């Protein structure tokens, strides 16, 4: 029997299989950040150990950092402590750190790909559930907990039970104005927030073949939101083209050799999946979430569904939305464009193309946060900051920002935020805040209108 893409990558990294237990998997790249690493370093040092492979480890400070005045000292005391601890730990263990103000600084899942560090066929882990992003390159990438971070520090390996395999195929052509974010919000709304639990998802079919790498990253990024450990897409010419010429990408002969190898990374025709799901691209429309988990999404033109249980009822109440009613026309207070889901240059371009020559609505506070220093630089080179400025919006500096509101970028209690990030949990963007998830074009339309509207009729 043939192998799936996932099997090929996973199996090639097994150091040992424990009978009736997990596999011990070798990790090619370990990404770390300031929030989930400090306790792992403490544990490691208590055992009197050093990081085994600092050369396969890369650090950035992204979760906790301010997105204005990054050249000035951080105000929040605890944030300072975490950022300083990371700096100190990286120094002690010889780990490369792209900290604040470094030219490669940014959200961990944005910088890996843009620097050419993320490559097909790799195993990549990070103490962060959106590590799934890197699967867009045909790598097996997944989020881990802090004990597991310590494991990888100590041994460059992780113990993990092999997940089941699911393939989601979307064939056909997407309608105009439907973005990769809409595709993944649609998929999650069909699978529910737990429908992918226990699985690793391979995305296949025309829609993903025709997608840019950045679009594929948006899709894979949100695999965790249906419970899947990760998602991946077979690498192809689009992937190779994207990698070529990036800072840490292989070059010349070495690149050619690697590409030959990468070309073998696809699911064999007779490979078997534990579950197969198919969707039709024509059915996908611009999406929005109305509840407090990413599975509670619908086409923006539809009416809020009737709750099916107490939890959903509670969720609608929290969101202050009414079943059976459309969301169109609802006044919005905040718009957030950014995060590892939609904080890349294509997202900023998309947003700005709809904002150009217009003004933001008076009632909207818009936070536009690039995913990395390199994205910020490119946005400025392309004059996107000017387009924003003319619309009455400021381009901020890179970080996770209002995606999880660990820094000052918090949406106040009760306020409604329309966000291009990946989670609409209660209080995710600040205690008491309400979040609706959308793609960049929808976010732009709402920035101008000041209320929820269908971006296609705009």
């Amino acid at each position, binding site marked *: 029997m043939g192998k799936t893409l996932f099997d090929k990558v996973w199996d*090639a990294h097994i*150091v*040992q299989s*424990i009978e*009736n*237990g*997990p596999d*011990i998997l*070798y990790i*090619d790249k370990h990404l770390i950040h300031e*929030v*989930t690493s*400090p*306790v792992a370093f*403490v*544990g490691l040092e*208590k055992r009197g150990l050093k990081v085994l492979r600092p050369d396969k480890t890369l650090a950035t400070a992204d*979760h906790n950092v301010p997105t204005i005045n990054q050249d000035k000292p951080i105000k929040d005391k605890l*944030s300072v*402590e*975490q950022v300083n*601890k990371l700096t100190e730990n990286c120094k002690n263990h010889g780990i490369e750190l792209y900290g604040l103000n470094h030219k490669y600084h940014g959200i961990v899942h944005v910088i890996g790909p843009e620097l050419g560090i993320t490559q097909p066929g790799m195993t990549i882990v990070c*103490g*962060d*559930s959106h590590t799934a992003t890197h699967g867009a390159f045909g790598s097996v990438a997944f*989020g*881990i*907990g*802090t*004990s*597991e971070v*310590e*494991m990888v520090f*100590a*041994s*460059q*390996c992780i*113990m*993990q039970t092999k997940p089941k395999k699911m393939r989601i195929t979307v064939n056909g052509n997407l309608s105009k104005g439907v973005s990769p974010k809409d595709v993944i919000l649609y998929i999650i709304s069909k699978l529910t*927030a*737990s429908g992918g*639990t226990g699985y690793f998802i391979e995305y296949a079919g025309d829609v993903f073949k025709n997608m840019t790498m950045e679009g594929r990253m948006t899709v894979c990024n949100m695999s*965790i939101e249906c*419970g899947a*450990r990760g998602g991946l897409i077979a690498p192809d010419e689009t992937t190779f083209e994207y990698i070529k010429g990036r800072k840490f990408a292989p070059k010349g002969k070495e690149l050619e050799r690697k590409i030959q190898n990468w070309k073998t990374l696809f699911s064999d025709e007779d490979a078997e999946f534990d579950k197969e799901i198919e969707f039709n691209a024509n059915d996908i429309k611009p999406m929005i979430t109305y509840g407090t*988990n990413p599975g509670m999404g619908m086409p923006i033109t539809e009416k809020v569904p009737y709750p099916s*249980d*107490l*939890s959903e009822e*509670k969720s609608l109440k929290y969101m202050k939305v009414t079943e059976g009613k459309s969301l169109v026309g609802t006044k919005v207070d905040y718009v957030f464009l950014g995060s590892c889901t939609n904080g890349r240059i294509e997202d900023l371009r998309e947003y700005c193309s709809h904002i150009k020559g217009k003004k933001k609505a008076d009632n909207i506070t818009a936070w536009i946060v690039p995913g990395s220093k390199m994205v910020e630089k490119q946005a400025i080179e392309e004059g996107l900051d000017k387009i924003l400025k003319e619309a009455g919006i400021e381009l901020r500096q890179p970080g996770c920002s209002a995606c*999880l509101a*660990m820094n000052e970028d918090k949406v106040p*209690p009760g306020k409604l935020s329309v966000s291009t990030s990946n*989670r609409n*949990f*209660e*209080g*995710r963007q600040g*205690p*008491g805040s309400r979040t609706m998830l959308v793609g960049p074009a929808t976010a732009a339309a709402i920035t101008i209108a000041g209320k929820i509207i269908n971006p296609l009729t705009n």
Partner: protein
Amino acid sequence: MPIEKFKLVKSSCVPLNTENVDTDQIIPARFLKATERKGFGDNLFRDWRYDNHNNEILSFPLNNPKYSGKILVAGSNFGCGSSREHAAWAIYDYGFRVVISSFFADIFRNNALNNGLLPVQISDNFLNKIFNIIKEDASSELIVDLEKQTVTIDKTKEQETFEINSYKKQCLLKGYDDIDYLLSIKDKIEEFENKNVV
């Protein structure tokens, strides 16, 4: 860090009859700033336990003096969302040793097991039974036996078995941790590295 050995827990429970409890609710992001593994219990379910003025929300089960014990009983898809291990630390630090649900998110399950907190997955049916029993009598006790992989309602002796990976079971019973194991196969890891120049 070596984990505490786990054998059997007999205790009353705290019921949290909500589905899709995500780790942002278990421990909100703004409390993730510590650089050590302690004290997270104080902020467990912070925004469900306290209102904006830091007053206890009395309707929340953790604030209800009727409920106490080492077992948290929760609705389906518990621990979804962020990979933060702080969620498992907070539950453990608060005093729970077992979480019972009809479905767990993958990363949370691993994180719990790595910290000596036992995630016990049972059928929806049995879960509802437990919720009902607690509703009738808040002091009802459950017996969670890891060796036998069973959950028993003490009063009625109704019982269900649960699954756990045999390797993880041994780790918990012995208080043994994965890193000890990984360090013991260092040669194998090196051999793998030499064979596979990635």
